[in-house]
């Protein structure tokens, strides 16, 4: 019997997701024996050309990490989609845009100006900026074109399954791989992680009083957090109530609040909005001034609420409006 073909590929990733695959240790050897790895740029020397030569759906599973920010990443995503039966969005970047998605708070022009002109370490007297196409000695040279913003993988191609995390923990990778190899997959579109919120499994949950209330917001580096008490009761923002469980509580265990890398819980589109509703309910203040006073202590809300998910946030998806719609009303 021929072995199923599997591809592992990074787009705009940091390498952490590929490292996480390596971290399944000797299980990786068993996986490597059971499948035919046809592409894994970070570890093996295969060429995109050989993938291009494959038939449609010849690859059983493509594991894709990283966001899509340029034309090359988009091209590879589209190529793998065409050649694969299943595409797994692997890690927060592929699922939701990830931390690089915070770059959407600046325009492409801002980013180019900073990187090639304004940053203090830049020496660029002739003001050269990278060009997608340039001519040198009569030859045409090309570079991938940077897109206007960061996209999650499913903004660009159809995705069959999602494995969240930054990066996904080893046991969830093994679970996902065996589900594919043993054909025990949940319905298409599923996220391969528990449906409930992190709070449901968090040990600190028992420390919560019956009625939670906070009167000030503190940042984790400003206080010595009690390692056993719920962060929210200490006034420290913890995204646990709005974040999917399944991370293995790596952050909790080192006394860091949840920052949301597993994305929203099942059925919730925008984890930031969900958290806002939760947070509103525990704010203990009456007058507008009091409420505003506490909320003013919430530094960098967009960074906190969408650290891993800005490209997938509702505010990012604001429908472009035709400015000439004045006749409509």
């Amino acid at each position, binding site marked *: 019997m021929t072995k199923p073909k599997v591809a592992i590929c990074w787009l705009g990733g940091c390498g952490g997701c590929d490292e996480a695959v390596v971290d399944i240790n000797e299980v990786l050897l068993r996986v490597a024996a059971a499948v035919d790895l046809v592409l894994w740029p970070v570890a093996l020397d295969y060429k995109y050309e050989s993938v291009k030569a494959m038939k449609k759906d010849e690859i059983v599973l493509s594991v894709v990490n990283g966001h*899509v920010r340029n*034309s090359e990443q*988009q091209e590879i995503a589209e190529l793998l989609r065409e050649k694969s039966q299943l595409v797994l969005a692997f890690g927060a970047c592929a699922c939701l845009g990830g931390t690089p998605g915070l*770059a*959407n*708070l*600046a*325009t*492409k022009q801002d980013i180019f100006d900073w990187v090639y002109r304004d940053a203090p370490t830049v020496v660029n007297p002739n003001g050269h900026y990278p060009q997608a196409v340039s001519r040198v000695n009569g030859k045409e040279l090309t570079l991938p*074109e*940077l*897109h*206007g*913003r*960061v*996209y999650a993988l*499913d*903004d*660009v*191609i159809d995705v069959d399954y999602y494995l969240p995390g930054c990066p996904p923990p080893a046991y969830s990778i093994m679970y996902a791989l065996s589900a594919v190899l043993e054909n025990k997959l949940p319905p298409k579109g599923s996220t391969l992680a528990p449906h409930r919120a992190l709070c449901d499994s968090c040990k600190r949950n028992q420390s919560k009083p019956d009625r939670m209330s906070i009167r000030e917001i503190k940042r984790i580096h400003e206080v010595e957090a009690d390692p056993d008490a719920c962060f929210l009761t200490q006034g420290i923002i913890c995204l646990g109530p709005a974040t999917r469980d399944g991370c293995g509580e790596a952050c909790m265990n080192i006394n860091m609040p949840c920052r949301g890398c597993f994305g929203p819980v099942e059925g*919730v*589109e*925008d984890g*930031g*909005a*969900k958290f*806002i*509703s939760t*947070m*509103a*309910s525990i*704010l203990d*203040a009456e007058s*507008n001034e009091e*409420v*505003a006073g506490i*909320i*003013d202590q*919430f530094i*960098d*809300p*967009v*960074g906190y*609420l969408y650290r891993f998910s*800005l490209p997938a946030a*509702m*505010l*990012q*998806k*604001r*429908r*472009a*409006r035709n*400015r000439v*719609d*004045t006749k*409509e*009303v």
Partner: protein
Amino acid sequence: MSEYKPKLVCFSCKFSWGYLTDEETISSTTENWVPVICTGKIDATHMLDAFRSGADGVLILGCPEGDCHYQDGNYEAKKRVHLIRRLLESVGIEGERIRIELSLDPEGTRIPDLVEEMRNELARLGPPKSILAAEEAPQETARARGGK
């Protein structure tokens, strides 16, 4: 740009706003009016969804302070509005694009007036300018441009 007509979504609580007037009458004068059973039912998701769908502003009309039929729905809504404001401001959208008014108006006659008043304020502000990077780029696919 002087022709710019802002879009507004108005949620109002059925227990204090317009319950003596039939809904069709109010709807006919007020576009995008959404009567709800309690302002406490308006989740932050609904508020953001209005902006995503193209609203330039959101107006929420709830029961007077301390007078919520369900105890504290209006109070919860008020706190959500404050938080959403802070979020909007952090992406460069003016906080005053979302407002909550806690008061009583059984006939609902003030609903169109309040909507008109806020619409005028929004017209002064012009269209929202979010700092979230624009989507246009020549090589992007139609799928990427249209979102999910």
